[in-house]
């Protein structure tokens, strides 16, 4: 953890962090919420207190919300609708040989 030099201007508001928690059985970290914190270490502490106090998790990630680039909801049509009529992209037209087992 690095400490910001005193010359840095004080922030009026703490930055926003997105919180991801992996549950005991879970394989992946799932987004569970967000919070404001002064730095990453504090964001982890706060995420622990806010999001894991009922044993929800065994691992936490915090990510600065500003580091996430999100798709624009207005682009939903061009981005996602063209995939709607292309059922052949789902691998449901094959017979799976028995020896392959569960896929």
């Amino acid at each position: 953890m690095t400490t910001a030099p005193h010359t840095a201007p004080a922030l009026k508001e703490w930055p926003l962090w997105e919180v991801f928690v992996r549950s005991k059985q879970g394989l992946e970290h799932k987004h569970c919420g967000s919070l404001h914190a002064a730095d990453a270490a504090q964001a982890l502490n706060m995420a622990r207190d806010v999001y894991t106090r009922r044993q929800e998790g065994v691992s936490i990630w915090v990510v600065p919300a500003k580091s996430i680039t999100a798709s624009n909801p207005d682009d939903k049509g061009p981005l996602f609708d063209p995939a709607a009529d292309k059922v052949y992209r789902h691998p449901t037209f094959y017979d799976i040989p028995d020896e392959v087992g569960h896929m």
Partner: protein
Amino acid sequence: MSTPINYLLHLADNALVLGQRNAEWCGHGPILEEDLALANMSLDLIGQARLLYSLVAKRAPTLAADASALPPEGAFAPWGGSAALHGGQLTEDTLAYFRDVPDFRNHTLLELPHHGALVGYAKGNLDYATTIVRNFLFSALMVPLWQQLTTCADTDLAAIAAKSVKEAGYHLRHSRDWLVKLGDGTDESHARVQASLEHLLPYTQEFWMLSALEKEATDAGVVIDWAQLSADWNALLDDALAEATLTRPSAGGYVSQGKLGQHSEHLGYLLAEMQSLARAHPGATW
């Protein structure tokens, strides 16, 4: 072997009184996350107190049945005499709710309000700098102390220590993080946390004033390496203060003696708030 009742009550009262104090922030935290954090830590402490009180109650079961086991009128009984036998049985609840100020064995530091003696830099009655400094000073004591007690000869106490050392570890991490942020923060936050440190550090002399309480425990086989504990605490303190750009004040003057039952005027108010419901409705359950 069993730890003296007095020493178990000392550990239990420390946890209960600080747990109750910090719970005063519930609904009043500076931000939502801190509100939750302090309430979580209060629940850790109250949980520790419950285990320790239950252990006392388990080890003193014959008191209620045997009236002759009660101390004579006016004599000191570590469990608070007949008041704690309310309803005829010594339980974790009677120990928490039916003992009075002189029966409590907690460090004076833990019962002080969340502001300086003369308020000083505190704005209002709840000064977060005071809360943080107190939590830091105490958890820096409890992490190495619980660590030592995990190997003590009293296996019940060792089990409680093994659970508590993890909780204290988080309390230390939380308070240290804030101590550094406030100390190495703005001019105002630095001044307020320094003022809190100057107000509270003298009360830590009580940690190291070894009394009949510790001697009784040592004689019974609960051996604590006080020199090591003091070295550990001082190292944690100096390291954090350096990072927080705070100056360690000299801690001299009056040595408080809460652990011997001689408390500040603040404990009475704390107990009144904590105990009034149980005393107004004795034996009530839900």
